C-alpha cells in the first residue's frame, strides 16, 4: 500500500465535536510545531453552534512557508463518529487515519488505501480519570501526545507550552503532562509497527514571526491607533474583535493609580445603534470604530450615507462571512465588496482597505483611524473570517514612537479668534476636504448645524441645485484625494516578461503566492498586483493596461472586485478574467493554479479568432 512520506510538508485535520474542549488541544499541536521552527497554518472550520455539532481544525505544515489552505488531507484525527464517513473520504490515498479504537470497528468502516492507527482513548481516559469532564478534556491531550510520538514532535516543547499556559496552576500543569505522557507511551508501545511517513524535523524557518488571529490584531491596531470609543453588536465572525479591544484596553489603557479607563466600549442594542454611536463620537472628535459583518453593514447603511454626506470620521471593520442574507456565519467570503464600496442610498462611495493577514489587520486598523480623520468619511477595513478567526503566522507588529496621529483638518479656537473664515463644507485647499470645528471650540464662532440634507458651503440649509452640485462634486474630488492617501498596491513581477497579470487582495494572498510559484514552475508566468485599497491608485489602471489579460481572483460569486474595477476605471470587461472561489472554504493554491492553467490552456487550444 502506498504510504505518504513527507518531512515538514503535510496537512493534518482534526475532526471534533464542538464544545468538547478540543480547540485548545489542537492549538497546542500547532504551536508545538511552530516552536520547532516549522511554519504551520491552522484553520477552524466550525458550525454556528455551542455544543454538539461537528467542528474541524485543519493544520497545514509547510517548511516552505505556504500559509494558504492546500486542499487534501494527509492525516485525519477522527474524533467525531457523526462525520466519520465524510472525514474518511477526504483522506489522500496512502494517508493516515488516527481514531479512537475503544469500540472495535469492522474492516468495512475503514479504507483499504489508508493506514489506520487506533488508540482506545475513551478506555484509557475512563481507566485513568473519575471525573467525566476530565475524561473528556484529557482525551484531547491524549491524542496530542500520541501524535507527538508518531510525527516526531519533541515532548519537551509541549511541556514548555504547558508550563507557560499553566503558570501558577501547578495542579493543572501536572495533570496535563500526565495525559500527554499517556498518549506518548501508548503510541510508542502499540503503534510503532505502523511507521508514519509524515514527520516534523526541527528547523529555523519561523524566525521573528508572530502567531495571532486577525481580529485580535485589528483590535490592537485600534488601541495603537488611538480609538477611544468602540460600539458594537455581537455578530460572528467579528465579535472577538470588540472583545479583544476591550481586553487589550484593560491591560494597556487603564490608569494604574486611579483605575480610570481611557476608553469606552458599549455593546449596543443593534448595529444601527453601534454605527450611530460611532458617528456621534466621530462628530465630537473622538476616534471611534465598530466591528461587524455583512448583515451588520446592511443595517448600518443609512448611517453610512449620513456620515459620508455630513463628512464624519467613522471606522468600520467588516469581518466578512458567507452571504447573502444571514448566509453562512461561520464560513468565509469576500462578498461585501460592492455592498461596502457603495453602501447607502444616493451617490455614495467609501474607502476600503484590504488587509492580507493579521499584521496588516493591525496596520490597516490604525491607518483607517488616521484616514477617517483626514478624509472625514467612513473607512472600511475589509477583513474576513479566514484572517479574522484563525491564528496566522505573520510579521511582528511594529510601531514608530515618533508617529503622530493625523487628526485631519480641525480648526482651533485660536484660529477662529484670529478671524479665520470657516465654511464647514468649503473646499479651501483644493483637495476636496473641508475644515471642521468640534463642538464647544469657541464661545461665539465656528458653530454649525450638521445635516444629512442639502446645504451650502457654510452649512446653511439650501436646496439650490448649484449648492448641491458643489457639494457632491467636491466629494468626488475628496475621493480622488483618498486614492493618493490609501495603502498603495504591491506588485510581484513575474520572472520573465508576460502578457498575463493577476489582481488579488485580502486573505487570498498566501494561496495566491503559492499558486504563482506552482504556475511559474509549470511555465505560466504572471505579473501579480495585490490591491490594498479602494479607491484604486493610478498604478492599478496602468497595471491592467500593461497586460493583455488580467485574472481577478476573489472569493465571491459575482466577481465584485472585477465589477468595481470595470465601473471605476472604465476597463474593458474582456480584459479582466474572473477567477472565483465561493463555497465558504478559504481559497486554495490548487484552485487558483488549476483555474488559471485551464484558462490558459483553453486559449492556446481554442481556434484563433481574428484579432480586430
Amino acid at each position, binding site marked *: 500500500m502506498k504510504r505518504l512520506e513527507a518531512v515538514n510538508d503535510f496537512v493534518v485535520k482534526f475532526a471534533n465535536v464542538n464544545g468538547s474542549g478540543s480547540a485548545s488541544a489542537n492549538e497546542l499541536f500547532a504551536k508545538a510545531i511552530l516552536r520547532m521552527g516549522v511554519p504551520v497554518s491552522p484553520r477552524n472550520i466550525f458550525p454556528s453552534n455551542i455544543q454538539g455539532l461537528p467542528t474541524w481544525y485543519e493544520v497545514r505544515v509547510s517548511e516552505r512557508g505556504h500559509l494558504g489552505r492546500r486542499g487534501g488531507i494527509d492525516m485525519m484525527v477522527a474524533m467525531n463518529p457523526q462525520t466519520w464517513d465524510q472525514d474518511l473520504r477526504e483522506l489522500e490515498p496512502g494517508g493516515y487515519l488516527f481514531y479512537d479504537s475503544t469500540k472495535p470497528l469492522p474492516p468495512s468502516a475503514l479504507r483499504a488505501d489508508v493506514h489506520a492507527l487506533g488508540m482506545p482513548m475513551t478506555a484509557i481516559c475512563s481507566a485513568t480519570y473519575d471525573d467525566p469532564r476530565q475524561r473528556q478534556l484529557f482525551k484531547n491531550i491524549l491524542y496530542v501526545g500520541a501524535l507527538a510520538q508518531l510525527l516526531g514532535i519533541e515532548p519537551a516543547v509541549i511541556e514548555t507550552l504547558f508550563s507557560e499556559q499553566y503558570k501558577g496552576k501547578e495542579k493543572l500543569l501536572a495533570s496535563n503532562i500526565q495525559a500527554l505522557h499517556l498518549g506518548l507511551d501508548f503510541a510508542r508501545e502499540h503503534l510503532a509497527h505502523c511507521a508514519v511517513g509524515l514527520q516534523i524535523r526541527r528547523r529555523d524557518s519561523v524566525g521573528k514571526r508572530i502567531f495571532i488571529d486577525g481580529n485580535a490584531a485589528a483590535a490592537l491596531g485600534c488601541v495603537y491607533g488611538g480609538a477611544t470609543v468602540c460600539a458594537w453588536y455581537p455578530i460572528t465572525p467579528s465579535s472577538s474583535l470588540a472583545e479583544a479591544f476591550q481586553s487589550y484596553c484593560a491591560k494597556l489603557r487603564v490608569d494604574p493609580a486611579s483605575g480610570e479607563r481611557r476608553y469606552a466600549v458599549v455593546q449596543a442594542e443593534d448595529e444601527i445603534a453601534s454605527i450611530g454611536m460611532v458617528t*456621534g463620537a466621530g462628530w465630537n472628535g473622538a476616534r471611534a470604530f465598530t466591528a461587524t459583518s455583512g448583515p451588520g453593514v446592511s443595517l448600518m447603511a443609512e448611517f453610512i450615507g449620513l456620515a459620508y454626506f455630513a463628512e464624519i470620521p467613522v471606522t468600520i471593520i467588516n469581518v466578512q462571512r458567507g452571504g447573502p442574507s444571514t448566509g453562512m456565519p461561520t464560513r468565509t467570503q469576500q462578498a461585501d465588496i460592492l455592498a461596502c464600496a457603495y453602501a447607502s442610498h444616493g451617490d455614495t462611495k467609501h474607502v476600503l482597505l484590504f488587509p492580507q493577514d493579521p499584521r496588516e489587520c493591525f496596520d490597516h486598523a490604525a491607518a483607517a483611524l488616521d484616514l477617517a480623520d483626514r478624509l472625514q468619511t467612513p473607512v472600511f477595513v475589509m477583513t474576513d473570517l479566514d484572517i479574522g478567526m484563525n491564528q496566522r503566522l505573520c510579521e511582528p507588529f511594529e510601531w514608530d514612537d515618533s508617529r503622530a496621529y493625523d487628526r485631519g483638518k480641525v480648526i482651533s479656537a485660536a484660529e477662529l479668534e484670529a478671524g479665520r473664515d470657516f465654511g464647514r463644507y468649503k473646499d479651501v485647499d483644493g483637495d476636496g476636504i473641508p475644515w471642521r470645528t468640534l463642538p464647544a471650540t469657541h464661545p461665539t464662532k465656528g458653530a454649525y448645524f450638521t445635516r444629512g440634507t442639502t446645504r451650502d458651503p457654510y452649512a446653511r440649509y439650501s436646496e439650490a441645485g448649484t449648492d448641491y452640485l458643489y457639494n457632491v462634486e467636491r466629494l468626488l474630488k475628496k475621493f480622488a484625494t483618498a486614492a493618493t492617501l490609501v495603502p498603495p498596491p504591491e506588485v510581484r513581477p513575474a520572472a520573465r516578461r508576460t502578457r498575463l497579470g493577476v489582481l488579488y487582495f485580502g486573505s487570498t494572498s498566501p494561496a495566491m503566492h503559492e499558486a504563482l510559484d506552482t504556475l511559474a514552475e509549470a511555465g505560466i508566468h504572471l505579473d501579480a498586483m495585490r490591491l490594498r485599497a479602494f479607491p484604486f491608485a493610478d498604478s492599478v489602471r496602468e497595471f491592467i493596461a500593461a497586460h493583455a489579460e488580467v485574472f481577478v481572483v476573489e472569493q465571491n460569486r459575482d466577481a465584485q472586485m472585477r465589477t468595481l474595477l470595470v465601473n471605476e476605471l472604465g476597463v474593458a470587461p474582456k480584459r479582466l478574467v474572473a477567477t472565483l472561489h465561493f463555497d465558504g472554504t478559504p481559497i486554495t493554491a490548487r484552485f487558483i493554479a488549476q483555474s488559471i492553467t485551464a484558462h490558459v490552456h483553453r486559449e492556446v487550444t481554442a481556434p484563433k479568432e481574428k484579432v480586430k
Partner: protein
Amino acid sequence: MTFLAKPRLHHPSLETNRVGYTRRDYEGKISTLCAGCGHDSISAAIVQACWQLDIEPHRVAKLSGIGCSSKTPDYFLGASHGFNTVHGRMPSVLTGANLANRELLYLGVSGDGDSASIGLGQFAHAMRRGVNMVYIVENNGVYGLTKGQFSATADRGSKSKKGVSNADNPIDLAALALQLGATYVARGFSGDKAQLVPLIEGAIRHHGAAFIDVVSPCVAFNNHAGSTRSYDHVRAHNEAVARIDFIDLAKEVTASPAPGDAIDLPQADGTVLRLRKLRADFDPTDRLAALGLVQGLGARGEVATGLLYIEPGATDLHAALKTPSTPLNRLAEAELCPGAQALEKINASLR
C-alpha cells in the same frame, strides 16, 4: 412661521446673565414651523431655561432625529453645534457624542414618531444606559411633515383630521422611561411655559438620563375636536402632580427646612431642587409609585404633568464605564498609544 427676522441688535438695557449673555444670545434661526405650533413654545422654554441657568451656549450640543420636532434645534441656541441625524436614531448619536466629551450638555430633541415608532428601541436603550442628557420629546400624536398620519402615542379612539379613529393602543413614553430606568422623568405641556421652564431646568441640572415628554399640539393636523392632543383637550385633562418651585444654584444648601408639602432634593452637583407636591399621595422619589400614578391617571383619560420622578443620587454611563474626567476626545497619543516597547512585549508573547 415668522417671515421677518428680529434685528440682531440688542437693546442696551437687555438683561445679561451671570456668564454675560442676554436671552437673545440663546436664540437660533427663524422657525419654519406653522404659526401656533407647540414646538416653538418648547424652543422658547429651552432658551429661557438655558439663559436662567447661565449655561454658555457653546457648551451645549443639540441633537435630533427627523420630523418637525427634530428641525427645531436650528431655531434655538445658534451658537451651539447641532446635529440633525437620521430618523429615530438620535439617541445613539447622542450617546456617542457624550462618550467623546462628557463635559458638554447634551440636549436631545425628538418627536413621537421619531422616539415612539421608528426609534423606540434607541429611546429605550439610551434610558437604560443612563446617558447623561436632556431628552425632550415634542409629542403631538401625529406625523406632521408627512401630513397627518397617527403616531404611536396617539390615544386609542382618538380621531384624525380626516375623521379616522385610531385602533392601536398608545405608547406612554413617560411610563416607559420610568420603567427603563431614566433617573429624571417629567411631563410638560407646551401651552404651560410656567410649568415647562422649571422642568427643563431641573433636567439640565440632573446628572443622568433625564426625559421630558412635552405634549405639544400640532395646529395643522391634530388640533381638532376628537383629538386627544389638541390644546383644548389637554388643558381640560391636565393633572399636574408636582411643581418645581425653584432650583437653588448655590453650592451650599441655604434653603430653609421644607415646610409642609415642599420637598428639598439635593442634586449631584450640590444644588437643591425644591419641589411642591400638588397631591398628598405623591412621592417623586418613588419610581413604582410614579409609574402607578401616571398609568392610573392615564387610564382615566387624564394627563399627569410635572416632575414625575427623580433619583437624587443618579449616576451615568461614564460612571459605569469608569472613564477619566478628561474627555476622551482630548486624550493625546501619550495617553492612548502604548508605544513600541509594549508592542515588542506583545510580539514576544505571540511566538
